[in-house]
């Protein structure tokens, strides 16, 4: 990575952190953990105002036109502040929408950029996106008729729109589904971080031709880019989570005293903290190396590597951070537990270590 790229990343991270701190930082994070639905309209307006949902959208289409590593710097900051907003999802769908020139896609993208619409992929946390959801697909004169269930969709609760990649009679299409469609029912289940997973029940929902945003090879490429950008984005959030959790923990080790000295003076705890630091730094190195592969033949393998590692490392590090706090770490009043909860939710949403390692192993490099 060049020094200029590193400086640019630091700048993005700093301004993102400033905005998030202005919105309330950890106080806001804790308030939202206990709120239902977990949505902060003012914060979302501020983030849209700063151009965040359009981070990967080219500038001539109204976006910020950031490179993947810049987006990851932003999402690292958001991860570290435990921002619950569906940023990674909207940034990834923005990228896909920007590739379609249909009037519907253009309007949807404008809504996304203005912060008026929240567009997320209709993809299950369990399936390798774009996996085959368990839904029946029938092509009729009116359009594509969908019935069935897409279980455990991250960020579904509060979304106004969904993007669904589907194989329809040997054609691959990217569909737009509206959350307000009467044939779509959302059933949300809470997650430990205050967020939720949504089960999407489709009861004969008809996507008319207008709702097909892309088809054929461009649809495939766009959906692959969406999935891989989302994997990188969630990996960045996880890196942010572990980095901040460790920072807070190290502060605690310096102030908490036992046996008449700061507990951070004990080698057993020092080495545990040092291992967590190595784990975090390595996950970050892999993340930014994977960013370099975005848009190349190695994109999928690289993104899968980054998210697999980040899922595993974030759980290790946040669990160790709880341990290093001792009993107070087990108390809900202590913020460190919020980091473990977010790491669990993000790792779940992202498909976890083993699922992504499988994708990594299966992805063929060009």
């Amino acid at each position: 990575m060049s020094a200029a790229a590193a400086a640019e990343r630091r700048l993005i991270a700093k301004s993102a952190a400033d905005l998030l701190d202005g919105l309330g930082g950890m106080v806001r994070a804790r308030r939202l953990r206990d709120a239902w639905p977990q949505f902060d309209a003012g914060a979302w307006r501020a983030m849209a105002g700063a151009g965040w949902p359009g981070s990967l959208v080219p500038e001539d289409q109204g976006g910020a036109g950031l490179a993947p590593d810049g987006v990851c710097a932003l999402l690292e900051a958001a991860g570290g502040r435990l921002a619950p907003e569906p940023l990674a999802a909207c940034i990834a769908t923005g990228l896909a929408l920007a590739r379609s020139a249909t009037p519907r896609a253009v309007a949807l993208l404008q809504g996304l950029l203005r912060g008026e619409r929240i567009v997320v992929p209709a993809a299950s946390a369990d399936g390798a996106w774009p996996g085959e959801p368990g839904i029946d697909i029938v092509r009729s004169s009116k359009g594509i008729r969908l019935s069935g269930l897409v279980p455990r969709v991250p960020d579904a609760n509060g979304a106004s729109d969904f993007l669904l990649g589907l194989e329809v009679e040997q054609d691959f299409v990217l569909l737009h589904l509206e959350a307000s469609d009467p044939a779509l029912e959302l059933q949300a289940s809470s997650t430990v971080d205050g967020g939720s997973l949504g089960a999407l029940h489709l009861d004969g929902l008809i996507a008319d031709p207008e709702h097909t945003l892309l088809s054929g090879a461009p649809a495939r490429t766009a959906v692959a880019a969406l999935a891989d950008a989302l994997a990188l984005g969630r990996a960045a959030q996880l890196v942010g989570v572990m980095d901040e959790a460790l920072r807070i923990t190290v502060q605690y080790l310096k102030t908490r005293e036992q046996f008449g000295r700061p507990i951070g003076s004990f080698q057993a705890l020092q080495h545990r903290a040092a291992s967590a630091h190595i784990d975090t730094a390595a996950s970050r190195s892999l993340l930014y190396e994977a960013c370099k592969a975005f848009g190349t033949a190695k994109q999928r393998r690289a993104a899968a590597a980054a998210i697999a590692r980040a899922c595993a490392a974030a759980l290790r590090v946040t669990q160790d951070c709880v341990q290093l706090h001792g009993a107070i770490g087990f108390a809900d009043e202590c913020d460190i537990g919020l980091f473990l909860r977010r790491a669990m939710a993000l790792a779940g949403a992202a498909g976890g270590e083993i699922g992504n390692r499988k994708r990594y192993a299966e992805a063929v490099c060009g």
Partner: protein
Amino acid sequence: MLRPESAAEQNFRLDVRAWLAANTPEHLRHLTFRPAPGEIMPWYRRLFERGWIAPHWPRQHGGMGASPAEQVILAEEMAVFGAPDIPSQGINQIGPLLIRFGSPAQRALHLPLILSGETVWCQGYSEPGAGSDLASLRTRARIEGGEFIIDGHKTWTTWGQHAHWMYALVRSGAAGRRHEGISFVLIDLTTPGITRRPIRNIAGDEEFCEVFLDRVRVPVANVVGEAGAGWRVATALLNEERIRIGSPLLALKALERLRAVARLTGADAAPQMQERIAQAELEVETLIAAYLEALEQLDGGDPASASACLKVLATETVQRVLDAAQEAAGGARALLRPLMAEGMRIDFSEMVLQSRRLSIYGGSNEIQRSLIASRVLGLTDGRRKPG
């Protein structure tokens, strides 16, 4: 390497591949130990003649001036081909140090001989009473005319019995603070008064030795940097050493070993083993990313903390990959002698035994973790200030 390769980098990769195939004797492939000088130095010389012996050295000193990506490409191709280990103390340790701290005369004398392989170097740091606590070293030098007269005992000296020169830390000043009064000297091992005694290691090889110094006379001109300021010189070298230990070469070789053993024993038919192999690949990919980042940031940041992280990551990655190779070997894991299969020499036990040293040398991984705790995280030991 996950990053895309430029056309020039792809060409370089193909060049390396073709060169290795054309220039490496079959008996030097897929070895799990460092071949003796008589066997390896002709190949070392060929690599030198091709201009690839010192990828990371600047061009003006006879190196390749290779980019970080080119260094990784070289390592990847060497590992896949099964290229032999070469003595690395000259290329990886003392060479870069002399480029940075050496006098013009020291550079002019030593650098060309390191590159051509005419001089093999070893490191004289550890002593029986000075391991992790290196600054407690007791080998003494007193000045007599223009010479250091050195008395002492160095140990764990890798390849010491094959080396022509040794760079060493000796105590030359008055007893003061621990890190003061230490000098960094270059010792010609043909000087009278030097006795070397090989030590058999856990893998059954004589790869390191003890070096006894009895009134060994070394010209003061062989001191690197200022006399008495050797600790600073050595510390800089330790950072360089740890970054080089962080090279993914060994991990890549371990990965090839894992794949070969799993294929040979049929262990790779089990999904659990495929999973383990994928995990190993991903860990090596992570190491490559961290290594690239460390090289790209060599000039900025705190090299001590970056190199400490990398040293731990690299060495423990190799060990974990070899743990998987042991699982793949199954009942054959403890076989003493290698088998020949598919034209490859398949070793089951030697590499894993050899790899135990990785987390010990160059500052044990526990020392590295303490260093990270103090330097990076600011956790003090409660007795004295870090540093």
